[in-house]
């Protein structure tokens, strides 16, 4: 008790010291004024005191869990058990689908627009989940593929008047091709190098789009991109929003379906095995280069595809939309939702995109909270909000067979 108190006091004093210059002093070197914000010091002191208790408690809980896990006993939370219950799953899916379908009819255009944004991030998250969550390839330049998709629609639409529906697969395929082209040099790289090189790719994409005027119209971007056409009809804002919303719902369902099937296939297992242990994986006869490329390219595919939709939704794009921060947000969706878990990523996307949208007052603190959440999640709940459900296989009757045979 005394020990804890002492520890927390030390922490509190330490953080007061640490945050003193930045939190308390505010120098305006322009107008030559210093503002002393002593109240902040009090907040820091109280806050860090309380947080240190929380921190210790959480760490202790973590230790206990680890111990139990080490003894071979598995803890499975109630949500997990619930999710493994198939009948519940079907019911829940039905309800959610229904809710998703009636959503734009019940709520106004703005709500639908926000929902479209969130759904775009769902697809992005699911795509990145393939390379980061399943295959364990940290990609910090994922937004580049998103940009490839967006620009391919914007340019094809601008120059050749190609429509949304033709460009949708083209965007995906172009994203995929870029994934393969960029994937080659990184095949030989270890995980950490991969992070910096992909980050570099992301930045290169932006710089090229800013400078290659002839291709991309430079930083002023491309405006007046067509919205998706509905049998050649001109839709009003409200109607076209609803239309895009339904396209997006279909795209999300398609993504979930495909990624889920991939995950539980021979390829998907190879991705996971590669993430778990590359050496053992290659010793099992799996071609690492091909597996890496396929994960990278398939992840890029979704970004390219949803990029097309993004361009058609905003009707204007410029390189400023494809920054590292965007990659970081997508990454935090995957991390917070639960790496490898499809449901987790979906929830993560809704959480991270909708929450700041509805809590505009706190939008300033958005990135601060993202950053902190990424750290805390890694420490206290590395499996994310929803941990990956394991695939179980039923195999009955083999015993009989062997007994008979």
């Amino acid at each position, binding site marked *: 008790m005394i020990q804890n108190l002492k520890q927390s006091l030390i922490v509190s004093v330490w953080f007061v010291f640490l945050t003193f210059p930045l939190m308390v002093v505010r120098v305006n070197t*322009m107008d030559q004024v210093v503002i002393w914000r002593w109240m902040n010091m009090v907040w820091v002191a109280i806050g860090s005191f309380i947080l240190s208790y929380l921190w210790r408690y959480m760490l202790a809980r973590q230790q206990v869990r680890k111990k139990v896990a080490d003894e071979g006993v598995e803890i499975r939370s109630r949500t997990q058990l619930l999710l493994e219950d198939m009948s519940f799953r079907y019911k829940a899916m039905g309800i959610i689908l229904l809710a998703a379908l009636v*959503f734009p009819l019940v*709520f106004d255009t703005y*709500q639908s627009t926000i929902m479209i*944004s969130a759904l775009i991030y769902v697809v992005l998250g699911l795509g990145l989940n393939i390379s980061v969550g399943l295959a364990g390839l940290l990609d910090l330049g994922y937004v580049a593929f998103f940009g490839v998709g967006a620009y391919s629609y914007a340019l094809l639409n601008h120059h050749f008047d190609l429509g949304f529906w033709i460009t949708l697969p083209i965007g995906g395929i172009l994203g995929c091709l870029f994934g393969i082209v960029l994937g080659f040099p990184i095949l030989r790289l270890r995980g950490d190098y991969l992070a910096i090189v992909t980050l570099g790719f992301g930045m290169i994409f932006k710089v090229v789009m800013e*400078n290659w005027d002839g291709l991309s119209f430079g930083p002023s971007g491309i405006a007046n991109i067509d919205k998706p056409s509905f049998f050649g009809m001109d839709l009003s804002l409200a109607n076209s929003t609803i239309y895009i919303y339904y396209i997006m719902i279909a795209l999300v369902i398609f993504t979930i379906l495909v990624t889920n099937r991939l995950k539980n296939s021979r390829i998907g297992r190879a991705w996971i095995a590669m993430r778990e242990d590359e050496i053992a994986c290659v010793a099992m006869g799996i071609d690492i280069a091909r597996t890496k490329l396929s994960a990278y390219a398939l992840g890029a595919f979704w970004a390219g595809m949803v990029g097309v939709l993004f361009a058609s939704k*905003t009707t204007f794009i410029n390189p400023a939309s494809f920054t590292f921060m965007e990659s970081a947000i997508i990454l935090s969706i995957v991390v917070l939702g639960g790496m490898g878990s499809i449901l987790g990523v979906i929830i993560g996307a809704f959480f991270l995109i909708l929450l700041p949208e509805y809590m505009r007052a706190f939008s300033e603190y958005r990135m601060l909270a993202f950053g902190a959440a990424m750290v805390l999640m890694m420490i206290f709940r590395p499996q994310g909000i929803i941990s990956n459900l394991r695939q179980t296989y039923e195999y009955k009757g083999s015993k009989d067979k062997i007994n008979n045979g």
Partner: protein
Amino acid sequence: MKKMTVLISTLALVLSMSVTGFAADTIKLGVAGPHSGDLAPYGIPAMKAAQLVVKQINAKGGILGKQVELLIQDDQCKPEIATNTATKLVTDGAHVVLGHICSGATKAALGIYKDAKIPVMSPSATNPPLTQSGDYPNFFRTIASDDMQAKMAVEFAINKLGVKKVAVLHDKGDYGKGFADFAKKYLDESGKVEVVLFEGVTPGAMDYSSIVQKVRKNKAEALVFGGYHPEASKLVSQMSRKRLKTIFISDDGVKDDSFLKVAGDAANGSYVTGPRDLSSIPLNSAATAEFKAEYGAEPGAFFQEGYSAALALLTAIEKAGSTDYDAVTKVLRSEYVETPVGKIKFDSKGDAEGVGFSVYKVENGAFTELK
């Protein structure tokens, strides 16, 4: 997941109801711009200007007997967020919109307003195609466009400074590169000047010494820079460090006190273009005084333009006698209005007649207008 959806939908319901709930008879002025994030300093002054204008008008009993209600939305200057913001304003029933601040965000949002027949007036989006392309009949602005600014800077360099070799640099951004492109175009067209260098610098790069040396090597007499003040101060500081005497000419994004303070002595002798000096206009000093009384600080960037835009929009509604799109735009195009940026009217494309630029020289740490 289910719980989550229920939670979110309830939340959404409550929020949407709380906004649309009292759709009582008010005139709704939407304000959109960056109010958080690193570009907030460009958006907040215009927002505060709108608040001041609305406060004043409401104190006098409003317009057409109705109170004016502000709908403020943050777009962080990002096109994708701006479309959401615009949709939000449209669904919340804004009659006119003051915004957006950044050209990119404005372009992304304009289509939505156009569909909804809402006049939009930006205090700061200077990108020429916004008006010149003719794509956006609902768009107006209280600031002159980049090409006018570039033309002014170029003419000044050629006629007043008499330079023969010019280097043109930009920050690879929407605004900066647009300005630089026009500057290069006008320089080339003049036939009297050689553009010896046309390049982008990387914002956030550690230093610009190579590019400064390159300017020296190309013997440029003047350097025209398109971009904002952080890069500009870095450039002039390094030029002075490297004892380079090339004349620095830049745009409105640089005409900011930060440039003077950050660059210090190095800024002296530079030229920047900016909206002409308005301190002689009584409405202007009144607005500034009002701001100082309310917030106890100097108003920031685009305060005057924002104030003017809010005033112009609301006055137009009053004169039109309704919030009807056609009526309001007709008034905006036909009748002059007194604002802090002068007595203005809008041309058929939406640019304000009567606003213009001047060239300022930095002397002893202050901008001095050159007449």
